[in-house]
């Protein structure tokens, strides 16, 4: 690590003493670690070492040629990143199939939560990352802590909704349509498949929509559902918010809940992240790569 950064500063110094335009290009020679430190400064706050964010694979001293953002760094996303010549991947969700995200399980822990050390899928993914010189960093807590909450504004923008009722809230006013038509619009705008599931009154007229990308717990559902026409969430638990919405329907309220899939609901926010990265690193290409709706349903 020290050798790489001193190498970089030596080179930067040499170039800085030359013509100015070249010095600007030298500033692009950032390691993954330097990119992350810059992100840390830009996003602010204390970065907890105990949180989910951090390097998950690859060498942090790698010089970054391009950044790819994604909601979930699947192997297909990594393959596309290589094609797009992006070697730093910022992912909102884990890379190695769970919250532990590739960390060695506790001693003796080959339980349901642990990943076997010789797991062939994880091994192939690590080999692919190494062979292609990729660096994978999980950027979740610190990205969503931004005041603007780009996870919400990104989703709204992807759906073509711009009238945010209150800047501190995720409530939007949209042109009126039935719940059914609004769900069809969401499906088509986000290019979703079987991940979309809706509950409630399909004929309800939708004007006020609350966006809740990611996982939605009962508390915000109980507080907000009866004040809006539609909640758009990533995922909920069936015995919680799904049947709360079903009971509200039985009670005669005309509203609906639609879930898009956790990852699908987070993609627009990570697309927004790529846009923001371009303002932080104007000379570094940044691209969003979607993981796509994982789910399909037989037609027969």
């Amino acid at each position, binding site marked *: 690590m020290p050798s790489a950064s001193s190498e970089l500063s030596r080179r930067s110094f040499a170039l800085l003493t030359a013509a100015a335009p070249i010095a600007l290009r030298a500033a692009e020679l950032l390691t993954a670690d330097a990119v992350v430190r810059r992100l840390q400064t830009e996003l602010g706050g204390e970065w907890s070492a105990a949180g*989910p964010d951090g390097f998950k694979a690859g060498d942090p001293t790698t010089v970054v040629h391009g950044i790819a953002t994604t909601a*979930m760094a*699947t*192997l*297909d996303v990594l*393959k596309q990143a290589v094609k797009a010549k992006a070697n730093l991947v910022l992912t909102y*969700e*884990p890379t190695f*199939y*769970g*919250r532990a995200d590739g960390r060695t399980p506790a001693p003796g822990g080959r339980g*349901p*939560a642990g*990943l*076997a050390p010789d*797991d*062939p*899928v994880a091994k*192939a*993914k690590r080999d692919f990352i190494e062979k292609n010189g990729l660096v994978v960093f999980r950027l979740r807590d610190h990205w969503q802590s931004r005041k603007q909450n780009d996870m919400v504004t990104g989703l709204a923008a992807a759906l073509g909704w711009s009238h945010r009722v209150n800047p501190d809230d995720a409530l939007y006013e949209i042109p009126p349509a039935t719940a059914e038509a609004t769900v069809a619009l969401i499906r088509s705008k986000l290019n979703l498949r*079987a*991940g979309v*599931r*809706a*509950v409630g009154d*399909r004929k309800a007229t939708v004007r006020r929509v609350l966006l809740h990308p990611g*996982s939605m717990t*009962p*508390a915000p*559902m*109980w507080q907000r559902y*009866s004040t809006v026409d539609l909640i758009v969430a*990533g*995922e909920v*638990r*069936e*015995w*919680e*918010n*799904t*049947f*709360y*919405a*079903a*009971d*509200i*329907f*039985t*009670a005669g309220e005309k509203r609906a809940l639609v879930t898009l*899939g*956790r*990852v699908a609901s987070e993609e627009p926010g990570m697309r927004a992240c790529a846009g923001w990265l371009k303002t932080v690193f104007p000379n570094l290409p940044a691209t969003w790569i979607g*993981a796509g709706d*994982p*789910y*399909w*349903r*037989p037609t*027969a």
Partner: protein
Amino acid sequence: MTAREVLDLIQKTSGVPISERSYRDTFKIGGPDSTVTGIATTFMCTFDMMKRAHAAGLNMVIPHEDTFWTDRDDVKDLTDNALYKLKTEWAKQNNMIVWRDHDHLHSMKPDFTVVASLRSVGIKGGENAAMAPRIFTIPETTLGEFAAQVKRLTGSRAFRCVGDPKARVSKILLGPGYATPRMTAEADVVIGGEQQEADGGFDNVEYVMDAASLGMAKGVIMLGHAISEQPGMEDYANWLRTFIHDIPIQFVPVVEPFW
């Protein structure tokens, strides 16, 4: 007949104690001294289902899942909630009793929810299955054909499948409800009710997407929680009828809420 007498018979016949430490297996509405006119078994005590049970003259509901939209049925934040008030007031006016059988049921061997879920997806040989999942081998087929068969048999509308439809599969691992098993080296297909999609204990969805990208034959099928566990509550009603004879007993299913 009192609710207490119903519980005593359930406990005695199953040979499995109803644990007083379980926060799940408790009365949610009414109590042990309430008089039972008839029993309705179901997946979850939804408002709609409770109304249909009442219309059928059955005032005791035995759901496998919750009544007030959290596993603990913790209502301290719901006292001012209009839906909570409506549901509880309606239930009291109609002398309804709700007692949940979850932990006790999953301790039974065989476990009705597992046996019936296996049967509902067309897997044979699961008559003695209990909660710990084991692999069932089916004649080799494609994931696409198997998924189509499972969807048709279960009637699940919100059915979701991950993996390559052309992958050839035969080893099936099933766990109903939220007990969706993790993918293993041996299994080709994991079937469950629902699971947190990412950032959980083990993320089947991403794992199967990556396995498919590597050309490995792996699939995951999410039936929906109600679709996967409710068939077991029909078996439960049939079981109750073998030892409770004086009052009507019916399976009153929750309708799959998704469209």
